[in-house]
């Protein structure tokens, strides 16, 4: 499970970074979204991976799933969602004002 998660985070981050460095605004948005998925998975993994253990607190001495990273992920998702929505609006306005979907508002030939 560790390997699957690590590969997933790696692939998401790699694609996200590549897309963020592209010149189109749409690629930027998708890139940032992929990066935020990667970060969310990363936060979750920081609470240690576990399957089938009690949530929050288990029986004395038993393993339990750490609730804090889950709470953090929830907050991060909400905030990331809101700011991405805002970025989309700005992107559309920029598209309308500059008639170009280049991040600089004009083509670099």
């Amino acid at each position, binding site marked *: 499970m560790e390997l699957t998660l690590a590969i997933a985070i790696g692939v998401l981050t790699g694609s996200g970074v590549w897309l963020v460095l592209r010149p189109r605004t749409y690629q930027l948005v998708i890139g940032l979204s992929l*990066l935020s998925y990667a970060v969310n998975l990363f936060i979750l993994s920081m609470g*240690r991976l576990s399957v089938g253990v009690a949530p929050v607190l288990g029986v004395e001495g038993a393993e339990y799933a750490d609730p804090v990273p889950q709470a953090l992920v929830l907050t991060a998702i909400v905030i990331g969602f809101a700011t*991405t929505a805002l*970025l989309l609006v*700005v992107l559309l306005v*920029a598209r309308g004002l500059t008639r170009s979907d280049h991040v600089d508002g004009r083509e670099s030939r």
Partner: protein
Amino acid sequence: MEWTKHLLIVPILLPMVAGAALLLIDETRHALKALVSVASTILLLVAGMALMRMAGGIPDGSGALSLSYAVANWPAPFAIVLVLDRLSALMLVLAAVLGLASLTFSLARWHRAGPHFHSLFQFLLMGLGGAFLTGDLFNLFVFFEVTLAASYGLLLHGSGAFRVRSGLHYIAINLAASLLFLVGVSLIYGVTGTLNMADLAARLPALPEGDRVLFQAGAAILGVAFLVKAGMWPLGFWLTPAYMAAAAPVGAIFVILTKVGVYVLLRLTLLLFGSPAGELTGFGGTALLWGGIATIVFATAGVLASQALGRLAGYSVLISAGTLLAAVGMGDASVVSGALFYLVSSTLSTAALFLLIELVERAREPGADLLAVTIEAYGEEGEEPEEREDEEVGVVMPGALAVLGVAFGCIGLLLAGMPPLSGFVAKFAMLTGMLNLDGLGSPSEIPARTWLLVALVILSGLAALIAMTRTGIRTFWAPLEPVLPRVLVVEVAPILILIGLCLAMTVGAGTIVNYTDATARSLHDPASYVRGVLGAGVQGQGPL
């Protein structure tokens, strides 16, 4: 006296309630909205002053030097805790002063240039208050995001292609930086199992050998996120265009946004990597010092090369940020004390410059001395405010050009760090600290990098003086037929008040240096901060 403890939550709750209430008021009722907004900001300033008194009243010396407030009344390392000490109180008052000044300025015309200006402004103040008061890393993230979300809206206020384009870059950079912030926070949580700053500082010395590298990686990633916000070279290229594009009152309040990054770096480096941190002591100091030096060099060149005033102001913000970062990197108590004085003085003066630019721009022919690159930007920017010319109500300032000229000269002196204004006292205090690390008069070896920093601080002042003189001559003396600007009292008053505060800082320098000295001492005693938070949590079990 127990109820005064609840004052800690006021800087967050008050702007939040005011901002939310402003959403419900119809957009056409400008006067009512302005009234609510100004009243909330004045109350915020009063609360900030009261908190400063409380923080200053904490007895210096042994014991806890911070006050904590458990929001949900859980004992300290759990749940949310707000922490007040001298540094956060100082930043709160500074934010409220700047907020009041830019809000007053905006009443002339800017607050009518688009919807929800006042709400966004209040939410920005709420985010700032939260970021200064919070005692744990994750809430710091939340309040950073609140501040940033409001700043995205404010940057776009007034619209126009240039603003939207810079806004797009600003949002993209800050979203990427926020992701780094999250990675850093979660790494630190994964290693130490806590997010509470005081608890973190207490647990660090006991960190096992193998985890130390992971923790350092987390702290470094977190640091990069703050450095993007503080505008350190090479992470600060977004700053100048964004600040240039912002409307004047927005640019003025944005000056404190870079200082939030500096504030967090100052707080965390000294708290986590101060003296008792064992192997980790001094982590990141060298990077901050050299990063700060590189920022000063870059920004000094930028100031000298700037044709447009807005660009000059943007680079002045960078000079100030670079100087502060280098001072934090030195990590010495006397340097930090001088740096805090410099932080207040440079924030007030750059904010005044941002406000003044718009008034000065009115006095010159549009596009008179702009480069071909910037003319496009200014051509677009000049368009929107003009159409509202007839609506203006208020007293028109007599002798406007003379007042503007004097204000411009004062800001030039402040940025250059020349007497008699506070810029001089600030730089003097900082340089004294750098050159006398072991106390005044004691013979100590001064390393070459300190000399480099001293020289750069002075040279950056000279560059600011040259650039300001050049622009001043071109604006106030050179035109044969000066365009008489229409300037309202409500626009000039905040600028004069900001400059007056700098003058007051010179007159009352003794009191303020005492305060910053005490602040620097408490920052260099992380144990006192930890006692204030964790100790108070145990007592907080009783009725609050």
